[in-house]
């Protein structure tokens, strides 16, 4: 594989993939907060 193809692939998949995965984590966190809501007495 030539360097240009490699570089562009890394840039596109690297940046896009990192953004997508962390967006997924953000959705996952919102889901966890819904499933395990904060309870005043229990969590303090």
């Amino acid at each position, binding site marked *: *594989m030539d*360097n*240009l193809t*490699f*570089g*562009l*692939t*890394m*840039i596109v*998949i*690297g*940046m896009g*993939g*990192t*953004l997508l*995965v*962390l*967006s*997924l*984590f*953000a*959705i*996952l*966190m*919102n889901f*966890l*907060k819904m*499933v*395990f*809501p*904060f*309870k005043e007495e*229990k*969590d303090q």
Partner: protein
Amino acid sequence: MFEAIVNGISGLGTGFVNLHWSNLVMIAVGCLLLYLGIKKDVEPLLLVPIGFGAILINVPLADLMGDEGFLRTIYNMGIANELFPLLIFIGIGAMTDFGPLLENPKIFLLGAAGQFGIFLTIGLALIFGFSKLDAVAIGIIGACDGPTAIYVTSKYAPHLLGAVSVAAYSYMSLVPVIQPPIMKLLTSEKERTVVMEPATKPVSRSAKIVFPIAVTVVGGLIAPKGLPLIGTIMLGNLLKECAVVSRLTKASENEIANVVTLFLGISIGATMDGRIFLTPQTLLILGFGFLAICLDTVCGVLFGKLMYFLTGGKINPLIGAAGISAYPMAARVVQKEGQKYNKLNFLLMHAVGANTGGQVGSVMAAAIMLSVLHGMGII
């Protein structure tokens, strides 16, 4: 008898006879690292052992990195097999509070944008003629994360370990100098003075316990080659959040982290032999490392501006600069810069959220990078 005496005496001072000019320069570099660590308080936990290791390896004929040298033993024990950075990561996970991030999960996106410099730098390094794996090792300096940089470099470009490690740790400590001009350049007065509302809903203990488990499983399934990095930082965090293994948590944060940091530092210093380290390539690597962190900050702040527009002005773009993994320094820089333009602005907790998002982001960026390399058949 006389001959024996002469032969014995000739064994003394051979270090002077075999001294190369590059050894002298590297001994001076080692002293500079010691000065930065001791006098200027620049990442002393790493720069002091690295600096001393660099001095040791540049004294000729001691053979400390020979097959039976003690530095080779330590190097093989934990650098050659990537164990040391992973053990440090457990300690880092145990010291990190993901609470501010979990209270406002969209801040995760800033942690992603703060890693874009890694990939842009890989592209630039390729243009300058570095090989694919060398470019990857150079780009990972932009992760602003010592263990990640050491893990990737020791595995795929071990001949660059000294330069990459020195660049990573030195530039991390220069974040308070590098970031503010970029933050000011890319934001308007109005944007810098945005006051962000504090998070109203705290996160439950159960969510904080499930978070590291979920990230490990999901992140590992997406990017399996990065699971050692993801798994160790999340293990450390789980130890902390479950609160039932305080002895393990304390050991991870203290004894393990401290011993491994010492061995890690001295082994990295041991790779800085003058004949290998002092090349034009090393200067280029140091330059690219600086560029990677600048690009991270640029991308983080620009993404912060995008979020400012999309949220109708609720997000202060300055917190985008905290999306890099230099924790907690980048968060403190954002707090300080925010207060410069609006004394009533307390951005710290939001910046800490972005900063911890950057920690997860840097680990995931490295994991994705390694998995893509594996998919392309390069590793």
